[in-house]
């Protein structure tokens, strides 16, 4: 190993200087997270103020508190759930993407690229169109979560058998196509005159016409899922060194994997049950935020959840600004931003093997 003289620098880094730099890095991550949180709240408020029925901000804000009159009903039953769900769903997708990328040590992993959201959507469609969702309100999210869990489990088994990056992504593509085909099949069989348009809604995702009930089941499920991901955070940091090294550091790798898989399934499944599959949020957000978080998987989960919330809230505002008639779907906007980004990411990875 090179001697200190050869490097031309002091062999011992002054402790305080070193600590100072490390904490500056962390402070930067925190600053970014706070800025994103402000952005997310800003877009949520904007979303709250947007709608076909022209109401003053004042009427809406008093309406959401007292629930009186037309403004109250619109604010409480329509605008608030939509704005809040955008945050919840974005947080679920962003946090899940960060955790999956950490687990697979791969910047291309995310709930949508790996097909998790597609099978979650399939689960939701099966529950809805065969009348199962009518039996109990928990059945719809349960089916979506089961769908997400199935795919996450398959990917986990593949990665355990040594499947590389390309194999995982291709498996995700295959699973997503299969789930989309089955979704179309299920909708064709169901006695539903609007099958085609419903199908598009599930595949592209939308927050239109969501209710407080949707928020009531999505919020706790997403919160539990994200909390589970947080408990796995340290293990994800250790997995940076590989599985054997992580185990030698006392990390229960099987448990970390299990928590990430279940956490992602809960958060993504609940989000998809409400809004259909919204693509690319889980891919793009963690990737953009990673440099601000010192490339540490553990530090990335919370900022990604906040960033995801900001992105989905912003996209949901954009959808209504571009097409006020409500014909543009949320997933169209995220895919228009995300798909070129995905391609760019692949090209970049090709250059730096």
């Amino acid at each position: 190993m090179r001697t200190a003289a050869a490097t031309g620098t002091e062999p011992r880094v002054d402790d305080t200087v070193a600590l100072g730099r490390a904490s500056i890095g962390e402070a930067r991550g925190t600053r970014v997270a706070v800025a994103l949180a402000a952005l997310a709240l800003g877009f949520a408020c904007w979303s709250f103020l947007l709608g076909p029925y022209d109401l003053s901000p004042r009427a809406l804000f008093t309406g959401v508190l007292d629930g009186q009159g037309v403004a109250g009903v619109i604010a409480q039953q329509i605008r608030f759930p939509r704005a809040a769900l955008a945050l919840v769903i974005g947080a679920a997708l962003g946090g899940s993407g960060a955790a999956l990328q950490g687990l697979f040590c791969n910047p291309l992993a995310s709930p949508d690229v790996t097909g998790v959201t597609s099978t979650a959507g399939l689960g939701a469609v099966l529950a809805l169109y065969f009348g199962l969702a009518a039996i109990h309100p928990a059945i719809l999210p349960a089916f979506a979560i089961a769908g997400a869990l199935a795919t996450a489990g398959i990917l986990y088994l593949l990665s355990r058998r040594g499947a590389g990056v390309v194999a995982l992504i291709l498996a995700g593509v295959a699973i997503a196509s299969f789930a989309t085909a089955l979704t179309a099949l299920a909708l064709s069989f169901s006695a539903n005159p609007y099958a085609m348009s419903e199908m598009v809604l599930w595949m592209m995702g939308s927050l239109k016409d969501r209710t407080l009930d949707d928020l009531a089941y999505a919020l706790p499920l997403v919160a539990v899922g994200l909390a589970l991901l947080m408990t796995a955070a340290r293990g994800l940091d250790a997995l940076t060194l590989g599985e054997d090294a992580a185990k030698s550091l006392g990390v229960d790798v099987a448990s970390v994997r299990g928590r990430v898989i279940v956490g992602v399934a809960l958060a993504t499944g609940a989000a998809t049950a409400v809004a259909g599959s919204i693509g690319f949020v889980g891919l793009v957000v963690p990737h953009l935020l990673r440099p601000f978080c010192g490339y540490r998987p553990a530090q990335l989960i919370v900022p990604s959840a906040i960033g995801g919330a900001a992105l989905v809230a912003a996209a949901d505002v954009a959808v209504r600004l571009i097409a006020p008639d409500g014909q543009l779907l949320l997933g169209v906007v995220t895919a228009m931003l995300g798909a070129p980004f995905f391609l760019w990411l692949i090209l970049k990875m090709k250059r730096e093997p």
Partner: protein
Amino acid sequence: MSATLIFENAAVRYGARQVLNDISLQFEAGAVTGIVGPNGAGKTTLLRAALGLLPLASGTVRVLNKPLAMWPRGALARAVAYLPQGGEAKWPMLAREVVMLGRLPHRPAFAAPQATDDRAVSEALARCDAGAFAERRMDELSAGERTRVLFARALATGAPVLLADEPAAFLDPAHQLRLMDLLREEARRGTTVAVTLHDLPLAARHCDEIVVLQEGRVAADGAPDIALSDEALARVFGVAALRVPDPGGGRDALASFRRV
């Protein structure tokens, strides 16, 4: 001296294949033990078995006199540090953050690093001459610099047993010597150091004890002169060595090999 890592008739199987067979070994505190052997002899398997990463088919492994099965996960991680072969940090984290991972066994869940952790990290970096690039990202470092950071990660744990799998691979001669000095220094602090090595001359010259593995069995062990005797080299590796006396009065060096 006392043995802190003990194998008693240990055996490991992959399916039907017996990869380690009837291994009985004692690794002494304060000594550098080199584990050598032809490819596929079971060197890595031996280290992984010592960490409990592989189940034993029979026999026992004792760490600090306690059977491996009785160690709680976290306590074992503080007792035995492991540097896997060809390790890399898969995300381009700061070198200092990578070394901080070595402190995970000492940190309660969700706790931020304490001053003791920071000190241990700085010290480990300095000992590996890696302090100068502590604040740089792993992808900005050369392969040799990354190796030193990863070695510092293993040292930062401060475990009484250090297992390193082929740490000298891909290092140029000067770095190899520096690495062996570091292992020696670590042993002098009372650590039990077990290291697999491909390079027989390096092992013969720098290790206190040598274990020669062949097809999952201990073919020879003891001081380098004994474990790597002409007879053992011929039997296990199928080579004869040219031995060159050290003008400094140290052990003879293995200079070159020919097939026998």
